[in-house]
């Protein structure tokens, strides 16, 4: 038949025809071999030491915090003495007959107090916060220092009989109230943070790979001759995969803006580096891949001050973060493989924060918390997908402005 003839010619002409193949195709195949095999991993083993590391970190933090708490008093007293001069300069107005040094050593950090503040409002609502009680033997050296509002206000001192002394007392009380308030505000002043953080632990696993029925279904061998059908049976003999996800390491710069006396919002920019190693053994052919992902993230979180005493604050923080993958570096058996960037990674986090102000302007803080990474649906395998929920520890410096 004529038509059969020309289709026969067509087949003959194109039977062994070859088309050029793009140069990067092999690299893509190699990368995919590694990537595809990872999808089949089923059981994920979290090493026991990882949990111990988390537990140990938390215990360490607890003790560390406790230590700071215990040692806080003497340290802050000495810091206060060092900055008495500042106080003298800042609150001279009504205190001619008050030696500022008698007010309280700690409040001298309240360099934010303005004259208007001192005059306008005298509500000592935060009295219990005012660290006016003598904290150490040194403060008792000045016994005639008027006791401010830490004591109930109307408890008169036996010796305060003279009107001017009363007046003095009143001024001091007002002063203390202001100081306490200002101190509160100091905690909530705008601050900048520079921090490093990491999720705790790195994870590794090693799996033999079995062929699943689902996987088989992906392979349409219906047209393959019967002789080759037994492909379905054995499949992943001599096949193994190992992967290791290193803990993410982040550095960030954030700014914290107070909303009220206790609540503040913070945001900024965070740089994260994520490293994973993959080793696949396919028929004894070892494919190694080192993947490093770089992210720039924008966090947004709210802080609530739970408790503050002198330079030490305990606060709760919760928020979210979006990380944009800015660079992907994949090295396979020594060669760079072009790789797509990961999609934006959303996460949310809750943490307990502990901050200690070394000097009024500068504090150190630690935020142990839990972070959850949402699955961004990309094919990129990384720590975030293998361990979506993670303990996280952030350590940083906070600059209080």
């Amino acid at each position, binding site marked *: 038949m004529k038509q059969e003839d*020309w289709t026969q010619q067509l087949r003959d002409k194109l039977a062994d025809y*070859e088309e050029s193949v793009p140069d990067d195709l*092999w690299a893509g195949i190699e990368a995919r071999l590694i990537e595809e095999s990872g999808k089949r991993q089923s059981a994920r083993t979290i090493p026991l030491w990882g949990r111990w590391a988390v537990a140990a970190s938390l215990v360490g933090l607890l003790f560390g915090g406790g230590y700071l708490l215990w040692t806080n008093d003497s340290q802050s007293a000495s810091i206060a003495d060092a900055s008495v001069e500042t106080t003298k300069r800042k609150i001279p107005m009504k205190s001619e007959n008050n030696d500022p040094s008698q007010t309280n050593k700690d409040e001298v950090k309240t360099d934010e107090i303005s004259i208007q503040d001192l005059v306008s409002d005298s509500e000592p609502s935060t009295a219990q916060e005012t660290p006016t009680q003598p904290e150490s033997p040194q403060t008792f050296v000045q016994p005639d220092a008027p006791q401010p509002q830490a004591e109930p206000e109307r408890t008169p001192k036996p010796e305060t009989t003279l009107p001017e002394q009363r007046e003095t007392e009143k001024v001091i009380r007002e002063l203390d109230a202001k100081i306490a308030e200002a101190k509160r505000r100091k905690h909530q002043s705008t601050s900048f943070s520079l921090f490093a953080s990491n999720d705790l632990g790195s994870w590794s696993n090693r799996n033999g790979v079995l062929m699943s029925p689902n996987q088989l279904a992906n392979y349409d061998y219906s047209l393959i001759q019967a002789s080759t059908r037994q492909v379905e049976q054995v499949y992943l003999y001599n096949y193994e995969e190992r992967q290791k996800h290193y803990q993410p390491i982040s550095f960030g710069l954030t700014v914290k803006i107070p909303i009220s006396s206790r609540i503040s919002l913070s945001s900024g920019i965070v740089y994260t580096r994520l490293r994973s190693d993959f080793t696949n053994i396919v028929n004894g052919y070892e494919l190694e891949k080192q993947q490093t992902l770089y992210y720039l993230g924008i966090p947004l979180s709210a802080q609530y001050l739970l408790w503050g005493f002198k330079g030490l604050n305990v606060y709760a923080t919760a928020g979210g973060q979006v990380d944009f993958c800015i660079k992907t570096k994949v090295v396979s058996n020594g060669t760079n493989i072009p790789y797509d960037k990961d999609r934006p990674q959303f996460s949310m986090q809750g943490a307990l924060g502990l901050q200690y102000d070394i000097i009024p302007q500068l504090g150190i803080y630690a935020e142990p918390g839990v972070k959850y990474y949402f699955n961004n649906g990309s094919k990129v395998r990384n720590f975030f997908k293998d361990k979506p929920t993670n303990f996280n520890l952030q350590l940083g410096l906070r600059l209080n402005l």
Partner: protein
Amino acid sequence: MVETERQLLDAIYRGDRQALRRLYDRYSAYVMAISLRYIHDREDAKDVVQDSFVKILKSVATFDYRGEGSLKSWVAKVVMNQAIDWVTTHERMHLVIQRPAEMPEFIDEKPPDIQKIPPDILNGMIGRLPAGFRLVLNLHVFEKLSHREIAQRLGIKESSSASQFSRAKILLKKMIDDYLNSQGI
């Protein structure tokens, strides 16, 4: 000396790191041509080849060797299956009921002069046929499947396969003739 398929497979079984790469080097251009016959877009065709080789390299260790050439035909079949799946999921495979605009009104019985057309042009022409035509023509001509087998594979009626094929030939012939005319051949 050219490495035989048997030798290549033996090297793969021995865990020769380079043997998988040699398998790829040996057949990638051949299957790229097949892929382009099913999928006109070069990027998509490349993706199909890539997906296919991922499957091939993962399962080659269990490939049942049946003599020289069996490896090549197996590789080709994996690519073909992958390409068919791609077409059926990415293109609306409308079996052309109505006559496409470029379909000639009447049939010229004279066979097209295939030998005068460069193979890349011819290969590309097949890739540009409407999806239904393209699949049936590829399967019938190059895979030598009967219309019954094609019907089973594509989930269509046997009669549809036959009619798609005859229309595919008409359209392809017209494309070939048009090309030759445009080249003044």
